[in-house]
């Protein structure tokens, strides 16, 4: 078996081709193309229209950015200390101008946590003076203090905190005094006509409230709030001479429904809160 020049050249060509192919495979393994996973994507830049245009122009990251941005807008997460609201409930003085015989006026402070839970404190004064046309007495309750503590739950916690729909509970307490004067007593059978007064009757009351209400922004940080309150007495002090008609902060003892209408000012807490509010303004 003889080896000539043609065999040697063929062997050299095969060797060179093998070396070239091996070199190309080595280059492919040295610089692999890594998939774009586990990367922190920046928030979408520009308006929705601009993001969609970039996607249509071939920017494959734009769709993911748009999806992430949409999810963020659908459920805003507010900080622990979102804002503080201070307000005054003034509906009773207005109703007194329309003939109501009693009033309770209070100042309330609300801490908005996560735009969801809201501890509330209400402190106020209540008074009454009533001489019903067809009755035989005058009832007076001098201005007396009351306080309530409680909690609200904002069902619109995903939305702008300037607009809220609330359910809540309260616990209220008031110490107070009252007079019943100018009482005329008539006994037709015995032909008796007596006049008497009972003054300085002291009492106190503890009650609970279930509250449903809304809060609406009217101008800048100012809001109006409206609540309906179903309340019930846990206990109150009676005396030998009777039971109180009016309880400061509660209203007439026999009534189970109350209302409040308040003007309030909201102070945002923290940079995150202000950012969320400004974002919602842009929306």
């Amino acid at each position, binding site marked *: 078996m003889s080896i000539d020049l043609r065999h040697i050249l063929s062997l050299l060509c095969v060797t060179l081709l093998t070396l070239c192919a091996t070199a190309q495979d080595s280059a492919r393994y040295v610089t692999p193309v890594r998939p774009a996973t586990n990367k922190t994507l920046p928030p979408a830049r520009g308006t929705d229209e601009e993001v969609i245009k970039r996607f249509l122009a071939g920017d494959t990251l734009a769709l993911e950015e748009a999806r992430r941005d949409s999810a963020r807008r659908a459920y805003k997460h507010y900080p622990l200390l979102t804002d503080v609201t201070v307000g005054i409930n003034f509906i009773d003085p207005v*109703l007194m101008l329309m003939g109501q015989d009693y009033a309770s006026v209070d100042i309330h402070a609300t801490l908005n946590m996560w735009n969801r839970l809201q501890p509330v404190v209400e402190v106020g004064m209540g008074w009454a003076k*009533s001489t*019903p046309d067809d*009755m*035989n*007495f005058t*009832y007076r309750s001098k201005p007396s203090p009351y306080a309530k503590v409680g909690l609200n739950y904002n069902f*619109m916690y995903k*939305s*702008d905190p300037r*607009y809220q*729909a609330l359910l809540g509970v309260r616990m209220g307490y008031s110490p107070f005094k009252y007079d*019943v004067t100018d*009482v005329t*007593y008539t*006994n037709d*059978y*015995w*032909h*008796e006509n*007596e006049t*008497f007064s*009972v003054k300085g009757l002291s009492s106190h009351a503890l009650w609970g409230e279930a509250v449903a209400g*809304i*809060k*609406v922004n009217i101008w800048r940080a100012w809001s*109006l709030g*409206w609540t*309906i309150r179903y309340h019930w007495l846990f206990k109150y002090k009676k005396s*030998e*001479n*009777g*039971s109180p*008609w009016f309880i400061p902060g509660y209203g*007439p*003892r*026999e*009534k189970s*429904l109350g*209302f409040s*209408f308040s003007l309030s000012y909201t102070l945002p807490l923290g940079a995150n809160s202000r950012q969320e509010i400004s974002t919602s303004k842009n929306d």
Partner: protein
Amino acid sequence: MRWLHVILPLMLLALVACDDNSCYDNGSALPLVRFYKSGTTQQVTLDGVTIRGVDAPGDSVLVDSSAVSEVYLPLRVSANSTQWVLEYGGETELADTITLQYRSVPYFSSAECGAMYNFELSSVTSTRYVIDSIAIAKPVIDNGTDVAIRLFFPVTNEY
């Protein structure tokens, strides 16, 4: 969230509702006296009974020859006792007198029922011509409708 602006005035309208000015008790504190068969809780009715207060102005009659099973007896606030006479009619002209001793207490009931006097009963007594016994069922008389005094008669049917 503009719907909140619409709800606000609607809730304002709710103010005009929910006001009940009715008095479901009496306007005065009156002791309710009910008649029973002796030794039982069976209520009885007396026919032809006349009831009048002792020293009542004009000798006015509270019940005039009527069938009675219970009666409200108004008390004087200017005295600590009030007497009532029960005349049973008929040929025998039997009559019993009941005496109530009490303390009058000024009392404010409610805005709907007003102010009045309550009475704290200390004792009730009676003659025994027809009446078998008398008992206090409720020592504090207010404007409620509970029985305050029980009168027992030793009969099964009406007189």
